[in-house]
């Protein structure tokens, strides 16, 4: 494969200086040029993962080199993109300031072509190596998690197939469990589970019925009603599943094992204490098992089985609420109601690849927060943010949508949005001025929403307001999803926002 030529961003306000540099470098490198700090930041934001090196001038109008460096630090770009500062500046304190903001090297003017070329190629090589290693680790993790999810899925399907079922059941439980957990965490801090547990509990939910391999075929697949003796044997599957897990000689302290055990053993307990095998009551039943229990019942009701037809979503919800198939934690019933609409859509459009990727994202999320080995992989962060973004936009086609970055302040509107709101497609603001560059009522109002603070949890903000659409003032609903960057030891930083405007009639 042919090596791709590294891309270098040259930032200098003087055309002659840019030419001087690009003449020297263009034999070996692709060149991007920026006339000032603002332009540089725009290019850095758009091509973060493509730019291999920045050659930065210190003194420029519209954001000088130091300001660019400060923003590169704030956004974490400096950890990934090396910067060589080139300046005629020889004040010791300014050069020291540049180093403290993370420049890799400082080259004074007039520079020697040979020295410049060598420093550039050395710096790019060093960073490329580091990036290659970090990419390698990430792709390995990605492969591994996918394979792990596939293993768990395959094993749990074996159990399901014996049951004469499609195997979709396990995947559905997975999805429902995950959605219920998200909703529960959103509503209550009562239980000792956090975001990192969601992926693990969803994976563990796949194993809820592994105990069924101990149940004889004639009972498991009997089309008619089970006799009391048969039903007793059938009930053994939850205890048997947990005993099987208990006899695994290792991994006792692993969260996955712990949750799988709880789920296997107690997913047929009832909130009123009349379930099996242990007759646990209320929150004596671990929350993971409570959640899988409700997910299991919902999916059983809405699927066809050898002994019953499928009920509709509405009917299933009604039966669950009327305690016709068990008694559940009222808080979880609220959660189920809250996700009800989304649930139908998610189960209908189920995609295993998406599901497998999810596990990776949970790991990725944890890795980003890792104190000892934080990942500075911009491509990777973008990947995660892109995902959040596409989830948000999935249902909003051909609408008024926009995308905003906070630092530097850049607004990008969809073609439709720009037309309807009478705004340019891209709005770049000079932070220093602090004032708005654009005199437009719509823009002022949208900005107010953008700067409303959500609780740093990637939540959406809904605001109703009058906007001027196609020249007419009409009531609108503005929905904004704020994306926070969480770095260790520091408060979360608001990095970007995605928005949608709905015209209310």
């Amino acid at each position, binding site marked *: 494969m042919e090596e791709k030529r590294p891309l270098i961003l040259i930032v200098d306000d*003087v*055309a*002659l200086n840019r030419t*001087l540099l690009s003449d020297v470098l263009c034999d070996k490198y692709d060149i991007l040029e920026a006339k000032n700090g603002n332009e540089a930041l725009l290019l850095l934001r758009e091509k973060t993962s493509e730019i291999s090196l920045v050659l930065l001038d210190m003194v*420029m*109008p519209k954001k000088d080199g130091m300001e660019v460096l400060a923003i590169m630090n704030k956004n974490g770009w400096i950890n990934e993109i090396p910067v060589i500062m080139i300046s005629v500046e020889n004040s010791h304190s300014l050069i020291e300031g540049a180093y403290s903001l993370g420049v890799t090297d400082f080259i004074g003017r007039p520079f020697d072509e040979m020295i410049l070329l060598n420093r550039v190629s050395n710096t790019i090589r060093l960073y490329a190596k580091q990036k290659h290693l970090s990419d390698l680790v990430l792709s390995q993790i990605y492969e591994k998690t996918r394979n792990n999810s596939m293993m768990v899925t395959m094993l749990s399907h074996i159990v399901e197939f014996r049951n004469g079922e499609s195997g979709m059941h396990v995947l559905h439980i997975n999805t429902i469990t995950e959605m219920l957990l998200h909703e529960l965490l959103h509503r209550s801090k009562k239980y000792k589970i956090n975001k990192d547990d969601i992926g693990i509990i969803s994976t563990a939910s796949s194993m809820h019925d592994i105990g069924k391999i101990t149940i004889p075929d004639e009972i498991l697949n009997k089309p008619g009603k089970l006799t009391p003796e048969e039903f007793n044997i059938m009930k053994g599957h939850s205890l048997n599943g947990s005993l099987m897990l208990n006899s695994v000689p290792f991994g006792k302290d692993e969260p996955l094992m712990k949750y799988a055990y709880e789920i296997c053993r107690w997913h047929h307990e009832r909130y009123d204490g009349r379930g099996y095998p242990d007759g646990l009551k209320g929150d004596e039943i671990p929350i993971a098992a409570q959640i899988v229990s409700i997910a299991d019942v919902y999916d059983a009701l809405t699927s066809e089985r050898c002994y019953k037809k499928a009920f509709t979503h509405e009917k299933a919800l009604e039966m669950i609420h009327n305690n016709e198939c068990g008694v559940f934690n009222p808080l979880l019933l609220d959660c189920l109601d809250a996700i009800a609409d989304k649930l139908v859509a998610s189960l209908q459009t189920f995609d295993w690849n998406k599901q497998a990727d999810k596990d990776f994202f949970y790991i990725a999320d944890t890795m980003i927060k890792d104190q000892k080995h934080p990942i500075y992989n911009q491509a990777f962060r973008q990947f995660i943010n892109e995902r959040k973004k596409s989830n948000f936009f999935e249902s909003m086609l051909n609408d008024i949508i926009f995308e905003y970055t906070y630092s530097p302040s850049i607004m990008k509107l969809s073609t439709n949005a720009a037309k309807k709101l009478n705004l340019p497609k891209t709005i770049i603001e000079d932070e220093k001025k602090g004032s708005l560059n654009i005199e437009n009522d719509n823009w002022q109002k949208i900005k107010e929403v953008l700067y409303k603070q959500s609780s740093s949890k990637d939540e959406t903000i809904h605001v109703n307001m009058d906007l001027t659409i196609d020249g007419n003032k009409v009531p609108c609903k503005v929905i904004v999803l704020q994306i926070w960057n969480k770095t260790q030891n520091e408060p979360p930083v608001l990095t970007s926002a995605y928005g949608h405007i709905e015209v209310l009639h």
Partner: protein
Amino acid sequence: MTLSELYSSLGESLNEVLERLRMESRIAKYLKLFLSDPSFEELKNAFASQDAKTAFRAAHTLKGVAANLGLNKLSASSSELTEDLRPLAFTVNSQALFDKVEADYIAAVEGIKQLE
């Protein structure tokens, strides 16, 4: 006038520039570009409008550009002016320092214009 004659007429050394930038053709190209560089014009206007901040930046730029092209006299006088303006205010010396920059700039520009 040849490149070498230009540099010696300005009291500078072509060899020093060649060592850094390698090719005579390239140096000639940059010198031509230098004629259209607005830094000096900006500096002059900044003095006229008493804008010390812009003057500082323009002097700073001129210092760098001149240094790259081996116009060391111009670079040196610009450097003195840059340091004088660094607090972003004009001093009693500023005008005299500017006059020196202007003389060096005009000398360089006149010479470059006569290049073959």
